[in-house]
């Protein structure tokens, strides 16, 4: 593996700070990590002695477990902080929480929070690299990296691919990071969903196409990604109900006839089967939804390895 680019000490707030070459380097590294994860003994000593703190101020299962596994497989130590049951409940703010943890010698923070911008705050208070594991509806760069890695692995490049992302675009941090990353990697991206779930000026901000008709959006698509549709949006008056939503925007076999024959189906999870995606699609041969989860660990290992300056020894040759 060539080491021309150095990512040591970098933050991952979102993907706009990363170049195409850097993203490709993360993919190349993730490929190696994925191979390690397929071995019987899934562990390399490269980050021994480093300590990672995962700060999950907002509930998450899969992202937290994915990060914790990634840390452990690189032989670093991991401490997990969740705001439930912590001193935050006693009124401690983020600043003091971070000062406290930092005083115990943390090398890198993984942060999930419901408010956009908190990873930047944690970096400001800790002066240590921070990986954003999702901040409100702002960004979720590691999810975007694993999504793009999953496509890249299958196709070798994102350049010129037509990627359709369907669903609640407004509330999705996954979409925002993916739009930045996918555009950067040369894909043509279409976002599709009800107009009330579309953020303003999205075409202008990300240089993507915006479609309200699913058939048009997924026509000749190479990749179709569904997003979780949350019932509470109905209570907020943003759409009339799941029935109408599924009939207009649900990913079904019938709809996918408009896409390319070898279309890849993706979903960042957790899925509402029968709402935004029908089981016939989620479980089809086109679906790489489960592989996305597998790749998540590899991509996060790659980031930790690159940021914490792991040395490519024999194990990572």
């Amino acid at each position, binding site marked *: 593996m060539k080491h021309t680019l150095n990512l040591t000490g970098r933050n991952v707030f979102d993907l706009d700070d990363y170049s195409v070459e850097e993203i490709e380097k993360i993919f190349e590294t993730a490929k190696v990590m994925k191979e390690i994860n397929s071995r019987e003994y899934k562990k390399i000593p490269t980050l021994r002695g480093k300590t990672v703190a995962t700060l999950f101020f907002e509930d998450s299962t899969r992202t937290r477990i994915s990060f914790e596994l990634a840390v452990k497989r690189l032989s670093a130590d991991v401490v997990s902080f969740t705001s439930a049951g912590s001193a935050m409940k006693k009124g401690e*703010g*983020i*600043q003091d929480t971070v000062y406290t943890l930092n005083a115990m010698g943390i090398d890198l923070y993984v942060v999930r*929070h*419901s*408010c*956009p*911008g*908190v990873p*930047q*705050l944690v970096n400001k208070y800790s002066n240590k690299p921070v990986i954003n594991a999702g*901040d*409100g*509806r*702002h*960004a979720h760069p590691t999810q975007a990296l694993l999504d793009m890695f999953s496509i890249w692995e299958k196709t070798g490049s994102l350049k010129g691919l037509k990627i359709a992302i369907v669903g609640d675009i407004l509330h999705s*941090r996954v979409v*925002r990071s993916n739009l930045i990353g996918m555009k950067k990697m040369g894909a043509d991206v279409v976002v599709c969903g009800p107009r009330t779930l579309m*953020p*303003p*000026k*999205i075409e*202008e*901000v990300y240089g993507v196409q915006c479609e309200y008709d699913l058939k048009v959006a997924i026509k000749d698509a190479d990749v179709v990604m569904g997003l979780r549709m949350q019932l509470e949006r109905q209570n907020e008056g943003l759409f009339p109900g799941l029935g109408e939503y599924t009939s207009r925007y649900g990913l079904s076999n019938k709809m996918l006839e408009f896409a390319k024959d070898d279309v890849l189906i993706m979903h960042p999870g957790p899925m509402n089967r029968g709402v935004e995606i029908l089981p016939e699609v989620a479980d089809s041969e086109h679906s790489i939804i489960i592989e996305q989860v597998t790749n998540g660990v590899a991509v996060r290992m790659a980031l930790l390895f690159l940021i914490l300056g792991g040395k490519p020894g024999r194990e990572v040759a």
Partner: protein
Amino acid sequence: MILLKNGMVYLSDKNKIEKADVLIDKKVIKKIAPAIEEKNAEVIDCSGMHIFPGFVDLHCHLRDPGYTYKEDIASGAESAAKGGFTSVCCMPNTNPAIDNISTLNYIMRKARDVGKTKIFVIGAMSKGLEGKEIANIASLVKGGVVGVSDDGNCIQVAKLQLNVMRYASIYDIPMICHSEEYSLSGKGQVNYGPMSTKLGLSGIPTLAEEIMVSRDIMLADVTGSHVHIAHASTKRTVELIRQAKKDCIKVTAEVTPHHLVLTEKACDGFDTNTKMKPPLRSEQDREALFEGLMDGTIDVIATDHAPHSDYEKELEFMKAPFGVIGFESAFPVLYSTLVRDDKMKLEELVVRMTSKPADIIKKDVGVLKEGAPADLNIFDLKDSFTFDESEILSKSKNSPFLGMKMWGKIHYTICDGKFTWKL
């Protein structure tokens, strides 16, 4: 007596800046003329400096009583004096709110005791600023308020707003309207537009302001009240006010320095010192506000000085309170970005910060002429500085202009014939 020698003096009667000497006797400007000689006066050499009438701010929050960790009347008066202000109007969203005579008296008494800046009080429109019942406006007017407002809040029920205006229309005071339709502003944090999309924050659409501005213009028309639109922030607001003025409806408006100078782009990076209501808007809105100011649609510049402590602002963007301070940066920011760049005449900027706001509250301040109160400030416009936290006299430092290089350094402020700021 104080004799200001050789300054470039803004003369209110002529609306011109001319070289002259100014003689102050006790609380009054006694004489303005070339080469005044007065043996008994303290002489200040003002060569190369400008002398303006003391600035008048229609919109500030002094946080006293109730939130004196953010600001109090003494620190607010000092901060105002350092900004060149000699008269400020404080908003009633204190705790308790200024919806009763004892709170009003407390502020007026404390303001007199502090003495640094003339403090005029805006009373509440609704009791407790809750938007449910009309406040005791008649008593407040008798007690000396110069206007009423629920600023920070906005009366949502049209019927109540109508009744407030009808009830208060018999007094010659402005109804100062913070225009915000709550169901549209919701949990919004920044302008609804490209920046809310990019940052993943809920947006506050311009509509939230415009719907209420149009409502209040109609209510002004019906009731004959004087409506003053606080902190106008959108293009359509400017258009609505322009049309209302053409229709001879009694409406005036203010704009803040931050809305004139900054746009939503400043919010990129989650700096909570760029979070205020109304939010920073688009470049088109900013341009329209400036055009509105230039053609007289927007009458005055007001700071909306809104102090918040560092531990309140040093939080997650969504949790930090709305508001920025403004006294000490207002003139230098506007001078640097508008006058120095030849977009606006210096005289025009002075008028919008002095006599125009004074007209709206109908007070005899904000003019520099013989016989007027000796309220003035002295700036060196060639002197530049970097706006730094350590220089700020307000208790709070939440300014979006920190680190900005500005021109126009204040050397003296004089209020009622007394120095209230000396460099």
